[in-house]
């Protein structure tokens, strides 16, 4: 949400250019190939779901997209620019536009929640400590944690830690939000509230959202597009909106996954 033009439509690049494009991506650990020939696009404002069974490489794909792992081959383009061929400065700039929520929050355990949110804010020059603190309070209240600024991560519940992680991910007004299993370990109601929060954030921030999940409820409730990875064939079985994938499954496996194995 780095910037909101008064008319959001006008600020968008021509429709031809997707926000994120993955081209011929092969992911490998050493000589062990995890996934090959991944090819998909994410439009601006999409909520893109990375689906698949356990161990198929969903989280690894996310790590490739946020620049933690280097692709064995292929490229990942952000607004037309390839991440891995960009200069280190440009890569840093791109990364500053990412907000990432890690699976267990990945909060710095020796810092309070406010200090956690203030870490990325340190990147902004010209902000006083009081203003940074105020911004941290704002982000925490956006995720429903008003008043918890001075708590340490070990003193709050798992669901709260996740929301605090989201507050930190939102700190720099990211253009792209990445979520790794946002609802893992949450009760259904908290998971639903988190889904609602994600929808609300997308609607008001206009951010592009990429989610790794295998929660069917979330996939259908919030996903506008997605990709399905398969562990056996080591490649993707299809891409598109979850509803379309269910209506016209490109592979029986996709259908089984999306219907929880209950074939009607």
């Amino acid at each position, binding site marked *: 949400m780095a910037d909101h033009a008064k008319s959001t439509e006008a600020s968008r690049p021509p429709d031809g250019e997707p926000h994120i494009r993955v081209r011929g991506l092969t992911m490998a650990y050493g000589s062990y190939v995890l996934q090959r020939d991944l090819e998909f696009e994410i439009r601006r404002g999409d909520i893109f779901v990375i689906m698949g069974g356990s161990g198929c490489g969903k989280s690894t794909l996310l790590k490739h997209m946020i620049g933690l792992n280097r692709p064995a081959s292929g490229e990942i383009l952000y607004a037309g620019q390839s991440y891995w061929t960009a200069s280190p400065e440009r890569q840093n700039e791109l990364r500053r536009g990412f907000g990432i929520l890690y699976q267990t929050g990945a909060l710095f*355990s020796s810092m309070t929640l406010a200090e956690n949110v203030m870490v990325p804010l340190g990147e902004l020059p010209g902000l006083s400590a009081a203003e940074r603190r*105020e*911004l941290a309070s*704002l982000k925490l209240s*956006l995720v429903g944690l008003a*008043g918890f600024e*001075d708590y340490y*991560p070990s003193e709050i519940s798992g669901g709260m830690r996740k929301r605090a992680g989201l507050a930190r991910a939102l700190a720099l007004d990211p253009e792209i939000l990445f979520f790794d299993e946002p609802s893992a370990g949450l009760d259904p109601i908290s998971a639903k509230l988190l889904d609602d929060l994600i929808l609300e954030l997308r609607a*008001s921030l*206009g951010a592009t959202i990429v989610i790794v999940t295998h929660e069917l409820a979330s996939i259908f409730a919030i996903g506008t597009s997605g990709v399905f990875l398969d562990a056996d064939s080591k490649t993707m079985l299809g891409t598109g909106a979850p509803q379309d994938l269910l209506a016209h499954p490109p592979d029986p496996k996709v259908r089984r996954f999306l219907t929880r194995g209950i074939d009607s």
Partner: protein
Amino acid sequence: MPPPDSTTTPARCTFEREGDRLILRCGGSWSLHAEHPRFAEQTGALAGDVARLEIEGREIQRWDSSLLAFLHQLAHACREKEIELDPRGLPEGAQRLLALSLEVEERGGARRVATRSNPLAAIGGGVLGAQQATMRALAFLGDVVISLFRFATFRARFRRADLWTQLHATGAGALGIVALINVLVGLILAFVGSMQLRMFGAEIYVASLVGIAIVRVMGPIMTGIILAGRTGAAFAAQIGTMQVNEEVDALETMGLPPSEYLVLPRVLSLAIMTPLLCLYADLLGILGGLIVGVAMLGIGPRQYLTQTFESVGLDELWIGLLHGAVFGIWIALAGCYHGMRCGRSASAVGQAVTAAVVSGIIGIVVMTAILTVVFDTLGL
């Protein structure tokens, strides 16, 4: 972030008063990366008799968290002064986010209140804390003794593989550094001693000096300090990290007492390995002295060794090895104790490791003093 285009104007906001109605006109391009109005500079605007605040934001070109932070503070100030806030003039996204940030009321009592410290209370707290710490340490010691008893009666539950791994890591893994330090200590002792003894033409007694010093105290002390830094720290870090990951809780709920499963193999391995490492350290310390004796003082190797064996009695060796065993057990206990009571954060692991190493080294020095007095009284 796209570069600001030429048509954008800096962020601005002005308050206009109409009776008891206040109108806030916001405009321009609000960005955290550029200069923007701060609420802290505008608090005076709400002073006086205001019943209603309307926000007018049609001229806002771009906005980000800087605008939200401003509005968030404004909304809180309005709530405090019971001013009705009408945000409908804002861009829709900003309206929704503002509503979201105000939606969840602060949970009562959640906010931390700084308590003033009272010196008397601090002293009392310190005494009570020391008492609790003593009880905790005694309870830990009791658990370990019970585990040792169970081990002696072959009922202890721990993985034999763990014991082997620990024996290897604490013993064989330390050979290199123990050798380096003790050869150097032997060299230094011989060199310093020879400067005095040479004045009396008694260079040959360098062998006695080095032999007794190394075998009786210096070998065990140097080995102990190395192990405190190497192995005691490792124990505290391993068990502390297991605390952070709730692995210790998992063991406990499986009915495996951590004092048996984690502490026992570690204490045993150091209790066994430290005396052996001391023996090894003794030999290398004597070798260090021998190098100085032969190379600088012109003593023959055979003569040096004969002198060493004549002056170092078996008592010296036992005393040294006893020192080693005591140090080993102490280091293992300190490392495991601090690991077991580690908090659940990354910095707590760091504190546990520091505490383990510091108490390990202090314990070594204090126990050397005690043992020296004891053996002196016994006439050994």
